[in-house]
């Protein structure tokens, strides 16, 4: 600090005595140049991130023959591609299945994980750190680690092959990532609030539901979004359990077979791709803040 003040002390007379206006002009010009450089870089980066979407959308609107040409702008615009995809046998069923999986999975995950996260954040008991270690460990494991016994369990013992139930039912028993994230957030809720509720004679469950839940709404929104996206994007789960029955496929899984059915019809394949991406992006625009807060929480807090 003293060193910094000294430096300023030494250089001050030089600027004051010399042409102060020129120094200020140079500084302003440098700021302007930096502004231009930063925003030019920003535009280049934006092109990298946005152009793939643009190309996909443009291809989705091309005629069959045009996709293989060098021409990047569709003429004519074939809006009926979306109609064709929508009317493909199975597409609506996949939509419905995906929605059921994502909505039921999200609801079950949040409801079952919340009390666990609350206990880990607010109760003191022996073995709490061990539970935390186990939660974090399972969160980091790929689903393939235990898939063989799980598959045998659901299909050979319970006969649930060709359904999405083996994916939905486990979500009623807590999800490690959701528990972890909710707990990180619950740690920030001041103890006074829960203590006050307890003094008023609230049971723990009532405290959680009536005092804590309203306070952590953003966190609940964030974990719900994460889980919804996880289900929507899941490819491995449906591949293992639903592949034998196209009536149980989800969009993520069916999308690839769509390409199969239409061979090299890239325009229709890209139209289907747009229809799978669109809902996720729409959800994001409505819940952008909660989502970004959630992502930040995974890395920064704790």
């Amino acid at each position, binding site marked *: 600090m003293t060193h910094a003040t000294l430096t300023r002390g030494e250089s001050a007379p030089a600027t004051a005595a010399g042409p102060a206006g020129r120094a200020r002009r140079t500084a302003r010009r440098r700021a302007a140049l930096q502004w231009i450089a930063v925003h030019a870089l920003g535009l280049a980066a934006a092109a990298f991130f946005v152009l793939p979407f643009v190309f996909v959308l443009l291809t989705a609107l091309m005629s069959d023959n045009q*996709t293989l040409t060098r021409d990047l702008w569709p003429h004519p615009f074939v809006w009926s591609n979306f109609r064709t995809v929508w009317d493909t046998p199975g597409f609506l069923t996949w939509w419905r299945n995906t929605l059921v999986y994502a909505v039921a999975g999200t609801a079950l995950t949040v409801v079952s994980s919340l009390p666990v996260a609350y206990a880990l954040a607010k109760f003191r008991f022996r073995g709490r750190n061990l539970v935390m270690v186990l939660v974090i460990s399972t969160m980091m494991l790929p689903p393939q680690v235990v898939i063989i016994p799980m598959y045998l369990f659901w299909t050979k013992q319970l006969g649930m092959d060709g359904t999405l139930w083996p994916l939905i039912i486990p979500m009623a028993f807590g999800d490690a990532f959701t528990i972890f994230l909710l707990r990180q957030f619950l740690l920030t809720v001041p103890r006074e609030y829960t203590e006050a509720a307890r003094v008023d004679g609230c049971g723990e469950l009532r405290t959680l539901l009536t005092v804590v839940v309203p306070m952590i709404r953003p966190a609940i929104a964030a974990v719900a979004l994460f889980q919804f996206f996880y289900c929507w994007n899941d490819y491995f789960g449906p591949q293992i359990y639903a592949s034998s029955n196209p009536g149980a496929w989800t969009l993520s899984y069916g999308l690839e077979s769509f390409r199969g059915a239409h061979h090299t019809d890239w325009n229709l394949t890209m139209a289907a791709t747009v229809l799978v991406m669109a809902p996720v992006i729409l959800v994001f625009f409505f819940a952008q803040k909660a989502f970004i807060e959630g992502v930040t929480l995974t890395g920064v807090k704790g």
Partner: protein
Amino acid sequence: MSAVHPQLRARRRKAALRNLAFLSPWIIGFSVFFAYPLVSTVYFSFMHYNGFDAPTWSGGKNWSYVFRDYPLFWPALRNTLWLVVVMVTLRVVFGLGIGLLITKIKTGAGLFRTAFYLPYLAPPVAATMAFVFLLNPGTGPVNHILGGIGIPAPGWFTDPHWSKPALTVLALWGIGDLMVIFMAALLDVPKEQYEAAELDGAGAWHRFRYVTLPNISPIVTFAVVTGVIQTMQYYTQPLVAGKVASGIIGNSGQQFEPGYPDRSTLTLPQLVYNLGFQRFDYGSACVVALVLFVLAMAFTALLMRRRSGFLGED
């Protein structure tokens, strides 16, 4: 004294029951969907089992098969190493760069941030199919453009030397999560430290090197370790890329050998699928699953050691 004791014990028992009740979903889930199948995976790794005949003891045969004779194991492990070294490094560097850029952008910051973030949300199957199309050597727009400006265009997903770089481009496109994490960390760096450095006459590079980096180094570590763990789980993108680029038709194709082209996109999780659900060799599939388990656990332990705050004493 003696009057307090039973009361205290009763209260303790009540608290223990309450803890148990709150934790019960996780206790059941952990036992049924993790502990039991993990033990079972170890058991099956020593059994010969094809799903139809009763399992029979096979000793270390599955283990020696996977490590010595299964032709896909070592290519998958080599690919994983490549991805850890190249893809994870580039993702961290690029994520930090984009994070820095977004903190410097003054005009239209919200718009830029959304544009940078959006690809992260694209469903992996859809994003992968889009990239296989965009980077399609003969007909894709990217190679049309490259050809137009006279750059020799690579074969991307159809060339074994370019398939992993193509996957890396796809991974860089979805950098949104890292960008947000780095952005938050960068905004947390105390302003006074920059001002002090500037008064000391530190240039942009020195400010980055001696102020920014030391402040965000925990987040860099976090990004590297979670990146490695994610690489262990890397499944959907390489599988779909290989399948679509190879022109394999449909989902029912059980004969599809993963890793197209020339095993260059194989990853360990794909082997579990290949052994278990295409070759019906559940025993060997469990061996690979355990290799995956050990690798993932090793890096998770590293993560928890480096970031003890992860566990968080309140």
